């Protein structure tokens, strides 16, 4: 019997209202890997992420985190499960009424009994790791989009969660900021032992960082594998994502 997966989706159907976006989703994610979820626009990447972090209850199936069904547990237990998770939203979602430092200290203040001085130290360390410690006293509206993303990642990671979800972490970021985030994801996996789940369309990040990639298409998962394996896939949807729109010629030459 294998040990419980960090994230396990069993026959999940998820969508908005009566309209399912994804059906029959089965997925298992284990400790210490970086998993990218890719797919075209509207393929359900963000919907899947919302289901995995407890924001969108599936119409059917089970979403398990740390071996427990997220939506079948009582609210307090669900809170305890989610406190082991960090989430970086596509919009940085920093609390606009708090300074950068207070934003990063927030999880520590809410979810732990640590003294404020220790929480502040932790927050400053995390901000420094991401190169934004000098912004600690600023308000979120006084920093740039790239800096806000880094601050949001610092907040998501300040309590060293076992599982970090990131929704389009590099969207609208310049290459320098994207590289900073990439290095941090690698550090989370290698040094901290966290599992990082990236919902992204940044193929460069997928190729260089991912241990495994999940491809969403046609209302479900169409392929799972390492980026190197998927690069050679003959599936048209996978090809479209890795190589751009596949042509008939390229298909025929591959078959030949």
């Amino acid at each position, binding site marked *: 019997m294998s040990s419980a997966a960090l994230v396990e989706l069993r026959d999940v159907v998820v969508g908005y209202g009566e309209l399912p976006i994804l059906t029959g989703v089965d997925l298992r994610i284990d400790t210490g890997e970086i998993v990218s979820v890719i797919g075209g626009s509207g393929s359900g990447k963000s919907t899947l992420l919302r289901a995995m972090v407890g924001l969108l209850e599936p119409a059917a199936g089970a979403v398990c985190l740390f071996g427990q069904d997220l939506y079948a547990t009582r609210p307090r237990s669900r809170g305890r499960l989610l406190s082991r998770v960090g989430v970086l939203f596509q919009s940085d979602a920093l609390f*606009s009424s708090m300074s950068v430092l207070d934003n990063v200290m927030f999880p520590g203040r809410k979810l732990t009994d640590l003294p404020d001085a220790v929480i502040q130290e932790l927050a400053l360390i995390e901000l420094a790791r991401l190169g934004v410690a000098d912004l600690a006293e600023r308000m979120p509206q006084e920093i740039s989009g790239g800096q806000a993303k880094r601050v949001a990642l610092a907040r998501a990671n300040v309590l060293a969660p076992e599982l970090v979800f990131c929704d389009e972490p590099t969207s609208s970021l310049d290459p320098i900021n994207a590289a900073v985030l990439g290095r941090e994801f690698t550090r989370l996996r290698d040094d901290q032992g966290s599992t990082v789940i990236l919902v992204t369309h940044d193929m460069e990040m997928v190729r260089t960082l991912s241990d495994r990639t999940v491809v969403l298409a046609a209302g479900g998962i169409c392929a799972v594998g390492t980026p190197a394996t998927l690069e050679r896939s003959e599936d048209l949807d996978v090809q479209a994502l890795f190589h751009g729109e596949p042509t008939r010629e390229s298909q025929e030459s591959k078959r030949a």
Partner: protein
Amino acid sequence: MDVRLDAIRPRSLLHELEIHARTRPAVLRLDLSALRQIDSTGVATLRAVTRRLRRSGVAVELHGATPEVMRVLAETPEPDPPKHPPEPGVLESLGRSCFAWWSGLLTLADMVIEAMQGAAGAVVGRRTFAWRDVVEQLELMGADALPIAATMSFLLGLVLDFQTWVQMHYYGTESVVLEFVGIGMARGFAPFIVAILLASRTAPAIAAQLSTMEMRQENDVLRVMGISPVRHLVVPRLFAITLVTPALSLIATASGILGGLLVTVWLDPHWMAAFETMLREMTLGDLWLGTVKSVLFGWVIGLASAFTGLHSGYGALSIGIAATRAAVASILFVMIVDSIVTTLWTMAQ
């Protein structure tokens, strides 16, 4: 019938074709030989015209197009027009509205229960409760509203005393006017005017703030940390409003009586006797009724504005709609609660 079109100008083309269509030809041939260039607007115009004419039974044929024009026509995508879902019938609309109301009511009940649990948890000393937020809200709701609440009730007391005095003077009973103003302010006018002030000032502010947080995904951040936005955001505001409304109401009562006293001093040489009558006739029960009402008003305003803010949706208009709904719902529910409490109190006397 042959129609030659020399210029692709959408309005003139549409107009000219409509004139020809009125003659009800079986076939309308469009000669495009003079057309050297066509862009998306031209293609869209041709297709819109063709579609409209075909619907009225006129076949349309295109002739003489250059290869370049033909290429653009062929390569421009031609999606089907959107199919609007059929309008629901009266019964279906009614059913949907009832269902929406019912599920809204259940959501509101959930929020109220969670807020009560959160408040109880905060009182028995849960470490994570942000009392700092309560203090901040007290300042926003109470301290900032105090001058205007005092001014409004002072003016109300003044006007009330003036108008009543003029009428009572005819019957020689002007000595009870100040008593009427005092009891009226304590029992109903002061809590009501404070509630209207909070409903128009504080309720939209709460709704807009929560709605903005919802739209910016700040509340989602709380949810994924396992923190309930109701407990974290709504409960501190409910605590604050529970303290603010009775306090403002008592100050407004005093201020209203002061306004009435000013008029009485001006108009009545025996104002001291009127003042003594008022003090003698006013009871703690009058102030108690006003306080109970103001606490209920505060809860109604707090819950209505929090509910509209947290369930406002994500569109560009949602913040404005949430703020408006919060104000309207607060005023409406305040009047309903006022009517019920006043009726029950009067019947119990």
